[in-house]
């Protein structure tokens, strides 16, 4: 609830004190921030009758001076330039400027200079600079996500921009929550260390006045970690509703674009919304696995058919009146049912076509259980199977390589060769690149639970439990272990040091975990389930993007391409 509510509060405050007809102007990033928490009908209630993008405003020339303009944009230099031009030739009666992050003094100076007509009534900073998709999960939707994998020397300015955007996003989250945290980072990641240090500098030195909030009993914790510590989670196929939709079709800003599948009849909806705030069925089913979802949907369809039947049975005037009364509810229910049925049908088709049940079983074995020989056999069989797609083959080999990197290098080589011969589309050496980035030497956490005896024993116990639960959802992301360590107060200083001279006494009550490189919906599910156990600690998860296997592989390829071209230059 937390993050979604704060962004909504910001937007409410922006609009409530301005009377009359308004136009809301957004940029390409804030449009996601706003659309995901605020609906068009709510905007209409607040008398916002037009929404435009800051890029397209200068194109139109008609003056609408009866409207008051409310700008909500990021304080980038491009936006400031566009504002300069628009303030010099104002189209609207009044201008109220709201920026989603900290403004530099020079930028205010530039704006003041261009406001010759004195149309600007207020300039404020409202820190809603993140996309709050779920109650405890936010993302920054960053485009060039692959930069975190590259060393700083390759593209220093690009990495600086990347790091600045992340620091801005994290700062906005804490300003929205009105907290100043103690900061820890993952030792093995340079990018994480850099971001942690720059965030600390911002919060404790540069803008220490702004962040000087009322001190609570225990400071909250900001933990900056790197995606490469757990490369397994984004590669796995998912079987819980929200994660599965993102993995198979793609979920962007809580919207699903069904055009990617391309097999729908003409009159079907092409884009649907999957939001836990607005859809009660989705809220209760987003973390359930596929089998349970099927049953729940069937139940929902049965209920709906009953209602539909009673609606057709109209005999008296009273029935008619009742039908008209209930029509909006009926229409909403119909839309909802058809949306979920379409989604599940499409996903079932994809599962069938790509033989994902078979592939996923091997994936889960690779991720969770032992037995190098058996794993090798299974992976080879699937590589030979014609109906397995290229991306699935690549994922299998990657998972095998991550698990058995050091065992039996001969067989590993054989798998590489087989993959190269079967899937020429994928660049050579992507798997090796992954190992270089996220191999066993680079990782901090105990990803496969085979580093010490305690973990091996825990794994065996879990193996027994699995026999009862679903085979396809046995994997627990590494994040789960990290959260457990924090809950027990046993997060090792060696692996996750504090920035500077920060210090934490006891356990924190609020923890924000930021994953550089992106989060997955499996991890956000893990966080939501952890929060529901009422352990006394509230976790919030954020990342630079929300990954599925396609996106993760894309980032890897891009990073590989750049590092290759870089090495050629050297």
């Amino acid at each position, binding site marked *: 609830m937390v993050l979604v509510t*704060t962004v909504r509060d*910001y937007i409410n405050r922006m609009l409530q004190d301005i009377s009359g*007809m308004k136009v809301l102007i957004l940029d390409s990033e804030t449009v996601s921030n706003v*659309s995901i928490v*605020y*609906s*068009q*009908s709510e905007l*209409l*209630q607040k008398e916002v*009758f*037009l*929404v435009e*993008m800051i890029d397209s405003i200068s194109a*139109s020339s008609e*003056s*609408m*001076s*009866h*409207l*008051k303009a409310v700008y909500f944009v990021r304080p980038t230099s491009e936006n400031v330039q566009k504002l300069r031009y628009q303030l010099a030739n104002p189209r609207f*009666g009044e201008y109220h400027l709201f920026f989603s992050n*900290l403004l530099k*003094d020079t930028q*205010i*100076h530039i704006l*003041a*200079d261009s*406001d*010759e*007509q*004195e*149309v*600007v*009534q*207020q*300039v*404020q*900073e409202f*820190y809603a600079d993140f996309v709050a998709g779920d109650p405890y999960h936010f993302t920054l939707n960053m485009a060039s996500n692959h930069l975190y994998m590259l060393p700083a020397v390759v593209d220093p300015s690009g990495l600086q921009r990347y790091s600045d955007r992340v620091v801005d996003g994290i700062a906005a989250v804490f300003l*929205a*929550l*009105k907290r100043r945290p103690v900061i820890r980072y993952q030792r093995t990641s340079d990018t994480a260390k850099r971001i942690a240090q720059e965030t600390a500098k911002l919060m404790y030195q540069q803008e220490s006045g*702004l962040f000087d909030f009322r001190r609570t009993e225990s400071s909250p914790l900001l933990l900056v970690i790197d995606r490469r510590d757990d490369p397994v989670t984004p590669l796995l196929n998912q079987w819980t509703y929200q994660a599965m939709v993102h993995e198979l079709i793609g979920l962007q*800003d809580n919207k699903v674009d069904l055009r990617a599948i391309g097999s729908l009849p003409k009159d079907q*909806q092409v*884009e*649907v*919304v999957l939001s836990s705030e*607005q*859809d009660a069925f989705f809220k209760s089913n987003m973390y359930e696995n596929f089998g349970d979802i099927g049953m729940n949907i069937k139940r929902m369809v049965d209920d709906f058919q009953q209602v539909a039947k009673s609606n057709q049975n109209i005999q008296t*005037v009273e029935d*008619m*009146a009742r039908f*008209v*009364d209930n*029509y909006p509810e009926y*229409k*909403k229910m119909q839309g*909802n049912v058809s949306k979920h049925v379409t989604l599940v049908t499409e996903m079932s088709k994809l599962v069938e076509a790509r033989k994902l049940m078979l592939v996923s079983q091997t994936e889960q074995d690779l991720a969770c259980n032992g037995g190098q020989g058996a794993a090798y056999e299974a992976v080879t069989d699937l590589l030979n199977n014609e109906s397995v797609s290229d991306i699935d083959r690549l994922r299998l080999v990657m998972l095998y390589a991550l698990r058995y990197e050091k065992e039996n290098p001969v067989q590993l080589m054989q798998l590489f060769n087989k993959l190269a011969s079967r899937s020429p589309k994928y660049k050579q050496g992507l798997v090796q690149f992954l190992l270089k980035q996220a191999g066993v030497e680079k990782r901090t956490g105990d990803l496969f639970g085979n580093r010490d005896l305690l973990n091996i024993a825990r794994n065996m116990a879990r193996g027994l439990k699995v026999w009862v639960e679903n085979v396809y959802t046995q994997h627990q992301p590494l994040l789960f272990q990290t959260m457990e360590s924090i809950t027990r107060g046993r997060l090792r200083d060696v692996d996750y040091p504090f920035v500077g001279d920060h210090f934490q006494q006891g356990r924190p009550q609020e923890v924000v975990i930021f994953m550089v490189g992106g989060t997955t919906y499996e991890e956000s599910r893990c966080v939501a389930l952890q929060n529901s156990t009422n352990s006394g600690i509230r976790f919030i998860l954020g990342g630079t993007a929300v990954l599925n296997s396609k996106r993760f592989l894309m980032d890897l390829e891009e990073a590989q391409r750049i590092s290759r071209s870089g090495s050629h230059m050297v």
Partner: protein
Amino acid sequence: MATRNRTLLFRKYRNSLRSVRAPMTESKSGVGPVIEMASTSLLHPKRSYTPVSTEDPANSSKGAVTVGLPPDWVDVSEEISVNIQRARTKMAELGKAHAKALMPSFGDGKEDQHQIESLTQEVTLLLRKSEKQLQRLSKGGPSEDSSVRKNVQRSLATDLQQLSMELRKKQSTYLKRLRLQKEDGGDLEMNLNGSSSRAEDDDFDDILFSEHQMSKIKKSEEISVEREKEIQQVVESVNELAQIMKDLSALVIDQGTIVDRIDYNIQNVASTVEDGLKQLQKAERTQRSGGMVKCASVLVILCFIMLVLLILKEIIF
């Protein structure tokens, strides 16, 4: 949630920059200095003079500081919202009248009925008028602010729909309670009359007894006819409102669907504008290339040439 107000700093910069700019712009058109001095006179009310504006009014309208005049359709939309407000107050009165009519009373209750009737009619009339005006709002033809107009229409349609649903709910509950009352009232009357007739049974003979019965039956008939009429009227207004709701539901946004997303609406506007542009270009091209007139004129000229040649041939030979 933390916020930071930068308006003061902004105003400080703006004022200092303005004073830097003021001596420079006296050579340019008089727009700048006039406005600046006008605003400084607002800031420093002690100053007794206001400068006479010497530049032409066309220039000064460009730098309007205040909110300008809205276009005509805004007046229509304001009228609609005023009507909706009036309908709301009338509905509150109607609710009170309903409650009063349902209370058991000794009188005939005819004035209550009349009041309810008139109020219901007024509200229905207001709603219907608002709906017609709403339809008119969209007919004004495409213009630059058509999306603003569409959104205003949508929000008014939502309010209207809510009001009509409220009205129908009120009416249906009133109907129900009325029906219950009718049955109870009828029984009560029957019981009263029945007991009185039993008391007088011994004294009167059959003919008078049947007269009593006849009058009793007639009276209950009248009452039921009246109630029927009322119910019929209420049902009629329910149907009217149903019609209004059907028309409105086309305008109102379904909450929770993709149409209710801000980013979808922005994209759609962009893509429909693009599509519109493409269509226009295509139409232009076909119009230009389909030069039927050109073809026809060329053919006519050819015909004339042939005619002339023919005549010449005749003349020569």
